[in-house]
């Protein structure tokens, strides 16, 4: 039976629209993967000698034990945002003579082979082996230790799915986790209760009593079956596989009429954002990112305007623009055929998207003005970055959007649905930051930071002045690629 599943999975991968992506993108993705693999491997090999030299009175393995909780926490956070549940289109399988349990086991077991579970292994294995060779620790104990750490990684793997599925939609539950995490960080920081050494001491005693490995094993199976039961009880069409019917609330958006011809689309986009979970989260995220500046400006080492300030400036005013813009026109994928055949010119449709993004940049930029508290140059940087976002980054995102062929199902229930986001979406973000960052770097090295900021703002203004021309060019791109886009949107992704 599993043979069939794997066959299905392979086909859905090989036959999806995104496989046909350009070879350059594939190479880049491959490069990124290679880079990470190499980084982790180097860390794994270098960790033992490094710790051995820096901490003479402690065994390296004990220091690692103390750090394990941080590793796991960071991994959990990272996975929460990056890793998606291994999804299969389950619906067609429901009525086939396949045991439900089998499908669920398959979905869950498949996740073990995720690349996220490979990275920790790249550190654990070399470090463990060096410890055996040099560490004067019992070989069997280290082997058990390595095994235990990997079990813990898998625990994070399954814990992540639970958190994602059960709590991701519920902002309060999410807050609960945030507070819980914050409390532990606080207790650690003020040295009231050091969870790091607590976990560390447990892992240390594991080296003496390998039988303790049973505890994480139990934890793992517990998490696995929690996942299993959750999926099993929600494996019905009228349950999580079907979205809840909410009562429609109509809001008066006639104020948008003042925007002229793009008004109907603007209204549509506002409703799109407000009534669908996915885009709505984007908006909430934007406000959280406004706090990003606090992390940077309060750092005393960051009194000079630097490359980092530019990135933060771009991010604070541009976060909505990026999150919304990278999925243009996928947001409208479910009714793209209508958009194309209705009495709509492409230009107007795109203009309304640009309008919405510009509006968000301006609003977010205004909200960052209190950062003037940290100096006028901070404000100037943020505003220059906002202008750059308006002038250059919006057209760049719009242009990138014309290559989007991935469908987004706004209506799909959030159950097992994290579609559309992938590494590719993050890659689009790179030029948005790298190019202005590079401009800043070059000009501040050649002249000074002020000149660099002025240059960034000027480039933004030039972009704004050329907007009409740029948009004509971008519209042509959308028009020539619209058949491919439409074809891609028709494919149900899973």
């Amino acid at each position: 039976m599993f043979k069939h599943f794997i066959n299905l999975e392979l086909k859905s991968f090989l036959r999806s629209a995104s496989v046909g992506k350009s070879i350059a993108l594939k190479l880049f993705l491959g490069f990124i993967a290679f880079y990470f693999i190499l980084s982790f491997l180097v860390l794994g090999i270098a960790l033992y000698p490094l710790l051995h030299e820096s901490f003479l009175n402690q065994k390296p393995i004990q220091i690692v034990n103390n750090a394990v909780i941080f590793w796991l926490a960071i991994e959990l956070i990272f996975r929460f945002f990056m890793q998606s549940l291994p999804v299969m289109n389950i619906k067609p399988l429901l009525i086939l003579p396949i045991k439900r349990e089998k499908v669920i086991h398959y979905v869950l077991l498949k996740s073990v082979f995720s690349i996220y579970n490979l990275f920790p292994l790249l550190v654990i294995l070399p470090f463990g082996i060096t410890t055996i060779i040099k560490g004067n620790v019992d070989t069997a104990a280290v082997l058990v230790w390595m095994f235990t750490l990997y079990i813990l990684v898998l625990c994070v793997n399954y814990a992540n799915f639970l958190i994602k599925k059960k709590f991701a939609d519920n902002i309060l539950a999410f807050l609960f986790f945030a507070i819980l995490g914050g409390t532990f960080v606080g207790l650690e920081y003020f040295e009231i209760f050091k969870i790091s050494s607590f976990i560390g001491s447990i892992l240390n005693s594991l080296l003496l009593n390998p039988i303790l490995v049973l505890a994480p094993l139990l934890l793992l199976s517990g998490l696995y079956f929690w996942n299993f039961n959750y999926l099993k009880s929600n494996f019905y069409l009228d349950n999580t596989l079907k979205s809840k019917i909410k009562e429609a609330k109509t809001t008066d958006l006639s104020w948008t009429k003042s925007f002229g011809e793009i008004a109907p689309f603007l209204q549509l986009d506002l409703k799109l954002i407000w009534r669908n979970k996915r885009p709505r989260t984007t908006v909430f995220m934007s406000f959280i990112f406004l706090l990003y500046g606090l992390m940077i400006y309060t750092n005393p080492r960051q009194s000079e305007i630097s490359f980092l300030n530019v990135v933060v400036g771009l991010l604070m005013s541009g976060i909505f623009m990026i999150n919304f813009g990278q999925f243009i026109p996928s947001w409208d994928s479910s009714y793209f055929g209508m958009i194309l055949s209705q009495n709509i010119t492409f230009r107007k449709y795109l203009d309304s998207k640009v309008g919405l993004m510009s509006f968000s940049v301006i609003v977010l930029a205004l909200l960052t003005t209190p950062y003037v508290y940290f100096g006028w140059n901070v404000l100037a940087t943020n505003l220059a970055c906002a202008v750059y976002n308006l002038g250059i980054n919006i057209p760049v995102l719009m242009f990138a959007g014309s290559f989007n062929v991935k469908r987004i199902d706004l209506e799909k229930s959030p159950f097992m649905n994290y579609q559309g986001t992938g590494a590719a979406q993050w890659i689009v973000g790179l030029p948005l930051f790298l190019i202005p960052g590079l401009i800043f770097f070059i000009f501040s090295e050649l002249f000074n930071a002020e000149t660099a900021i002025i240059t960034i703002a000027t480039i933004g203004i030039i972009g704004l002045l050329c907007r009409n021309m740029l948009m004509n060019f971008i519209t042509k791109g959308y028009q020539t690629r619209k058949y491919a886009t439409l074809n891609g949107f028709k494919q149900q992704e899973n």
Partner: protein
Amino acid sequence: MIQVTQLSKTYNETNVLNIPNLEIPKGQSFGLVGNNGAGKTTFFSLLLDLIQPTTGTLTNNEIQVNTSEDWKPFTSAFLDESFLIGYLTAEEYFYFIGDIRGQNKADVNALLVKHEEFFNDEILRNKKYLRDLSKGNQKKVGIIATLIGNPKVVILDEPFANLDPTTVSRLKKIIKELGENPEITVLVSSHDLQHTVEVCDRIVALNKGEIVKDIVTSAETLKELESFFAV
């Protein structure tokens, strides 16, 4: 109104549509019948510039559809549910379509009142998003939306499928009314021969992408078609 010349569509060397010549005069109600895969939806998609023809051209009121967008103001279509915006209510959707076709709320409301009966109290004022309506009710919304803004060309793909018997007979009435207007060209596809014969002046049968029958509707048409499709 619609002129098709040397039109063909090929996917991986399989010819799915091949129409050397077809002319649909203004005001005609044109029925397209055929089995699954005969090329009905392909033809409509080509007419709406949703897919590219392999060869040949399509003109709508002398405008070549894949080079200019000027046919859009007077053409309206409903091919499938992907023409609906799921997160809008029916009213909002109608007003949205009205907006982009230059109709104000009062114009749209007047049209909706006229079709109150067709909706059968299941569409308007029920506080549901379109995505939560049943397939049949979604179809009703899509069909009525094509009538907004006085289109000159109305394209309906399989309008009778998924509808209940009462609605089917009401829909036939609507299409017949459209057909009686000499300004409006109606294009309907269906695999229900009887319905098509009832509402259309002219029927073209497609089989594997080729036109196999082109007849002006008369008393014998249904029999002729039935015997053709009977194996």
